[in-house]
């Protein structure tokens, strides 16, 4: 089905949820409200003429410095694809600034589990009803969400765990572990950047 036709179908099915839609470089995106996102995605996945059975990607976007007018602070972007029917659509769910949260789609695609954890980890968007919403890439005691626009590229202070780690090294040194002497004793094999 043509992407514009899919958009029309969505407009007919969820008239109050669709904010706007547009096409760019042959790809159509629909901007939607976050409230009924699970319902909408389930409908896209299960309708006989749509069958969007492959969740290609799920990611968060911080709109703080985006020039387009009328966007919320955050959005969650879903790229969907139908393997049997070979068509695609993009959904952009607008999420507000205060305690950004949206319903989890793990019930529809269990593979969304880690994608949502990643979005929570790096962008700080919470997913309601997620079975295990923890950080996935960063350490559990990390402060802040790096992909937010206000997060600096380079921090002013060392990671809090670093001092702890250095102290542990000192502790181990007391037991006679001598990394330099060890290095002199045997030269390691050339490290290759593989595996």
């Amino acid at each position, binding site marked *: 089905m043509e992407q514009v036709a899919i958009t029309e179908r969505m407009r007919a099915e969820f008239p109050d949820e669709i904010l706007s839609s547009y096409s760019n470089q042959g790809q159509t995106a629909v901007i939607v409200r976050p409230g009924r996102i699970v319902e909408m995605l389930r409908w896209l996945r299960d309708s006989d003429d749509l069958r969007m059975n492959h969740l*290609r990607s799920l990611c968060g976007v911080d709109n703080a*410095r985006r020039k*387009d007018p009328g966007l919320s602070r955050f959005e969650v972007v879903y790229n969907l694809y139908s393997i049997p029917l070979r068509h695609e659509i993009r959904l952009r769910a607008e999420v507000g600034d205060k305690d950004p949260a949206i319903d989890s789609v793990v019930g529809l695609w269990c593979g969304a589990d*880690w994608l949502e954890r990643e979005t929570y980890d790096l962008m700080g968007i919470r997913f309601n009803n997620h079975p295990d919403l923890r950080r996935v*890439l960063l350490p559990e005691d990390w402060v802040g969400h*790096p*992909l937010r626009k206000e997060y600096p590229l380079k921090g002013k202070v060392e990671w809090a765990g670093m001092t702890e780690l250095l102290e542990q090294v000192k502790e181990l040194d007391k037991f006679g572990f001598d990394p330099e002497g060890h290095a002199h004793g045997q030269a390691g094999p050339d490290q290759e950047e*593989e595996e």
Partner: protein
Amino acid sequence: MTSPTQQTLEVPVADGEGERYSLRMGPQHPATHGVLRVDLELDGETIIECKPQVGYLHRGFEKLAENRTYAQALILTDRLDYIAAMANNVGYCLAVEKLLGISVPLRAKYIRTLVCEMSRLCSHLLWLATHALDIGAMTVFLYCFREREILLDLFEELCGARLTFSYPRIGGVRQDVTSHFINELQRFLDIFPSKIEEYETLIDTNRIWLKRTVGVGKLSGEEALALGLTGACLRGSGVDYDLRKHQPYDAYDQVEFEVPLGSDGDIYARYRCRMEEMHQSARIIQQCIDQLPPGPIIGPDAPDLVMPNKIPARIEADSSAYGTGLIRLIRDRTPYLTGDVYLATEVPKGELGFYFISDGNNRPYRMHIRSPSFIHIGALAAIAKGELIADLIANIGSLDVVLGESDR
């Protein structure tokens, strides 16, 4: 001398309630293919719960890319899947080209297809080598590295690097292929199919190999799809999804090849899929060599570094000329198209997608990488549950993950 850490090790003792214990496998375990840690809850040898932990190699590429120009961010993609860096480069370039509306000459498209398939061979050879080694077949490992070495030498001749190439450019490729390169590649293609048969004679009907792979890690098509698996892991379960056919890019619509499908969805089916893919890759490379059209290798509107082909020859050696080139790159004020684009390519590991948002600036507003390895490791928990710990090793190998891509 015993070290104090050895003395304090706790030995798990079986209590009255059975032998349940937890085990942390990795991140330095050789069979986890990099820095993957798997936290296991075990009952004897059966896995009750499996929690993969990633992030040891997280370098913040998505954040870094927002602070670099499009041409600069290309080198980050080398470090995603460093086993098949060429495929990542091409995926990135294609996405940026679509985003910014840049055209690519036909010759460059063919060269890219060619190097992508060489990359796929490299990746599949390394996968077969380590996967077989994990299960206990040592010889295959050495055989595969032998052929992979030829490919790496060819890459070295093509662009000077063996692992991190940055050879494709936004709008084309960096430099043309030489006739020597083509001849050497042809020589490789002449011997390669017989080498695949050599690997197959070693393990295809090997009793140990069959015991370790047939019926292990079984996934139905629906399960694999719901878990988000792509690439050979999905095709092993019989789902016909190959982006080279579904949404052809570069010269894939100009060449003939088949997409091998499995039906059983177990480790053996995935193994057979990848072995067949190697045959198909060799076929694609052969067609690219035969059909390679003449013409330019980089488009006129490529927002690239000031490359030697644009600098007048007489000031080529002048360092100040390169200096201004770099300054121009950083102060690039070309107005770009705005909008967002999601473009996926079929890399050896699965579907590698780039989601870009451009706000007209010379840097991406947002770059999201949909990395197949990350999703495959996420799926490991569901696949390994209830199976034996020895099969976990086979499963990790079969999913074909690389941690550089997973952690980004």
